[in-house]
């Protein structure tokens, strides 16, 4: 249902995406007692990078060149499928959640191949960790969506979210709460936030997503950063749709801001987990989602 309203949501998403990392950085600085960079720092970085020269290593091939663009395109396609509160997404059809996750997987695939193409040990290390951890995180997302579908009986993402709104009675709260917790963990894992990965570490050996973009520079880096911001926006939007089930789009945007602040606080409160502890965390998220699904399965008729 490509209507004006849904198109507006997409444009808001495209515009406001770099704002989230800015807010998170700002909140972390304030918690640490510093002023920190302005929230719009993300936009300034993008503009600065776009004007720089392309920097591609001698070993890199056309894969390195094309990967950022294809990755960004994939995430934008994902955005087209994401509903906002009761408003359906720009496109919605049966199984669109599968296409959304497929697009995110394609983006990750391009980033990994780009990292491997540079031939640098650190980029490959980041690629390996990112690939392995997202492979373990994927079951949580699928089971979570199964729970939503079971709850609402709908098969498309927009239908699921819209179905949540009216029936948000107390009986379903525990099931949805567990699903939301699982989605929260998945969000932190996929978007390189603290418990799984430290976004602003400088020691290559501890990086996951940072190492992926280690070799990118100039416009390529801009595309990659913007893609990452969009992905964070996507996950945030899905979380908000789940938590603020009854609201209209305005409540969702406020929720997004609050979520960004929340992530900032979480990042300041915790340190990065040891790499060995991340797989159990991800499987834990899948278990949470399965528990949520079981609760929903038992309660709904």
């Amino acid at each position: 249902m490509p209507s004006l309203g849904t198109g507006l949501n997409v444009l808001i998403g495209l515009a406001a995406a770099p704002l989230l990392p800015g807010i998170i950085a700002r909140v972390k600085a304030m918690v640490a007692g510093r002023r920190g960079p302005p929230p719009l720092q993300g936009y300034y970085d993008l503009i600065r990078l776009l004007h720089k020269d392309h920097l591609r290593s001698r070993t890199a091939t056309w894969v390195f060149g094309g990967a950022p663009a294809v990755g960004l395109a994939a995430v934008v396609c994902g955005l087209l499928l994401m509903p906002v509160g009761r408003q359906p997404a720009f496109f919605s059809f049966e199984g669109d959640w599968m296409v959304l996750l497929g697009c995110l997987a394609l983006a990750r695939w391009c980033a990994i191949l780009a990292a491997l193409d540079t031939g640098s040990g650190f980029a490959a290390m980041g690629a390996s960790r990112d690939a392995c951890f997202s492979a373990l995180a994927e079951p949580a997302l699928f089971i979570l969506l199964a729970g939503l579908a079971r709850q609402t009986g709908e098969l498309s993402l927009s239908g699921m979210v819209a179905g949540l709104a009216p029936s948000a009675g107390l009986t379903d709260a525990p099931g949805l709460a567990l699903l939301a917790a699982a989605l929260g963990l998945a969000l932190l894992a996929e978007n390189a936030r603290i418990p799984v990965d430290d976004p602003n570490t400088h020691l290559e050996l501890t990086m996951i997503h940072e190492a992926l973009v280690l070799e990118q520079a100039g416009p390529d880096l801009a595309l990659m950063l913007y893609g990452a911001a969009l992905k964070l926006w996507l996950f945030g939007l899905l979380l908000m749709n789940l938590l603020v089930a009854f609201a209209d789009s305005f409540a969702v945007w406020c929720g997004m801001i609050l979520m960004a602040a929340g992530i900032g606080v979480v990042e300041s409160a915790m340190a990065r987990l040891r790499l060995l502890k991340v797989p159990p965390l991800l499987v834990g998220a899948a278990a949470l989602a399965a528990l949520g699904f079981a609760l929903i399965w038992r309660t709904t008729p």
Partner: protein
Amino acid sequence: MNVMLLSLAVWSCGALICLAARRGAALLGPLFVVGGAMPLLVQSLQVLFSGQSVVLWMPWQVPFGSFCVGMDALSAVFSAPLLIVSALSAVYGSGYLRKAPPAALGFHWFCFLLLTMSMWLVLAARNAVLFLVAWEGMALSSFFLVLFDGRERHVRHAGWLYLTAGHLGAACLIAFFALLGRGSGSMDFAAWDTAGWAPGVRHATFLLALAGFGVKAGLVPWHVWLPEAHPAAPSHVSAVMSGVMIKTGIYGLLRALEILAVPAVWWSWLLMGVGLFSGLLGVLLAGMQADTKRVLAYSSVENVGLITLAVGLGLLARHCGQPVIAALAFTAALWHAFNHALFKSLLFLVAGAVAQATRLRTMDRLGGLLRRMPITGAAGLIGATAIVGLPPLNGFVGEYLLLAAAMRSVTIGAGMPVLAGLAVLGGLALIGGIAAVCFARFFGIVFLGEARSSEAVAANDPPVPMRWPIATLALLCLGMAAIAPAFAGRLANVLPGGAWLGGVEKAIWHVWAFLLGGSALAGGMVVWSAMHGRPVVRPATWGCGYAAPTPRMQYTAASFFEPLSRFFEDLLPVRKKEVLPAGLFPHRAAWRARVTDVVMARLYQPLAKWLDWILAKPRRLQHGRLHLYLLGIVLALFALMIWKLE
């Protein structure tokens, strides 16, 4: 009708001619394969799209045998990729074997033609005796092809293991057909109806069919021969074996289910369990292999597992009265079987080109080949992306159909199908994720980064007869994605019991349109970023400022999969040989690890040892003392009297 006889005649005469023409076989062989394959391909596609099947019955002077050959929709779905892949592999093979000795060449093409003929006959046979003769003929001809370079010990071991597994499978099938043919005089498929059977016999027959066809399909736990045999064969043969031959196992299973009309519920659970476990173990072991072709062989185990998973889900849905879910799941199975043949054979041909260009198959000694072998590299990328199931290629359509079926059974179904749907969703997510890691590793380590050995540096694209099949298969993968909705619609009513409602077909057109738009957007963005006009600077890769970086400092294949191999430790027993550095000035330190197949290590090797121990018992009977032999005769007489006289 006579198309079938014509092609069989072309193939058999071709085989004999190749056996005679030693040097000329390199050219004649592929010519005959393609010549025989094309008319049949046209017929298969005709049958598939027009829906009316073809049957030819001729008397055959063998007890209970009759030359009953037919092509219906189910056979057509499997015979189309078979003919395409066999033809292209034959063309590829002529280039791949140009340095082989002429004597071996003649015999090789003789066996290749017989293999193609017997595989097609397996799909077309409508009589049990013809089916068994074709089935064993397929096993024997591929046995000779696997042992093409039989001088090495491991190839001989692989050949032995392959034919032994094939024969044990055939033994189950012999018992299966004997049970089916019980009572009824003729052994034609049409003559059987298993309606009035006792449940016990029906279950035993199904288990025999699963074991017999599971061995050929490569399902866990019968898969142990596959990662040995496929890499040992020449690449174009492994492409045919991994691409289409294991599908004859799936075809056989579907045909058996069609004959045993009323399935029990636990059959579907068993199929789904075997499918899931094959998928998980297959992809994990694929990720752990150091040899390019072994990665692809284990990946075949995974994909066959997914197909069986889809068949199991379809059976369960049909049993619980959900025709739409059944149709979706069966279509997913057939679609995946059709397309896996294309991209798996593409990847094997690519691996073959790499192996011939660098004479190397260990991934840790390759690297940087995309620059040196652009066409093979690009085709490899398309193959890898397709097999992982990423949009917009044909692998994704198969995943979409299966997951849509699973999601529907979660939402609509009550009771058991919900659990099944959840299991499929979770399992497929994990397997898909690990497959992405496995093939990122395969493509990344082999084609991207810096060349790790002198052979890799000297690599270049294969000659023309090898290049065209690779390019054609890559284009076919893209083409299949383009015609996905129409073709999926055709596949829907191949297997009975599935009703294809309008709702789902509309959704598939939506997906198709969305993906088309998305790829256009991606294409546009790539062109925009290329044309951005900023000058490109080409410095060396950042190595933390290390003064003299070497290619060997890049990530190796084993380390790429290390996070997952540590998490799934008990499924992947690793055999280590390590010499730790000792003393103040350590001399030699060595560390070598090899992942062993858990099924082989825990199940078959102990079983073989125990069997040897048991079979050693009668050997003591032949002790050479004549007196005890005579006593043996007398005791046999008394035992017989006691047993039989009263």
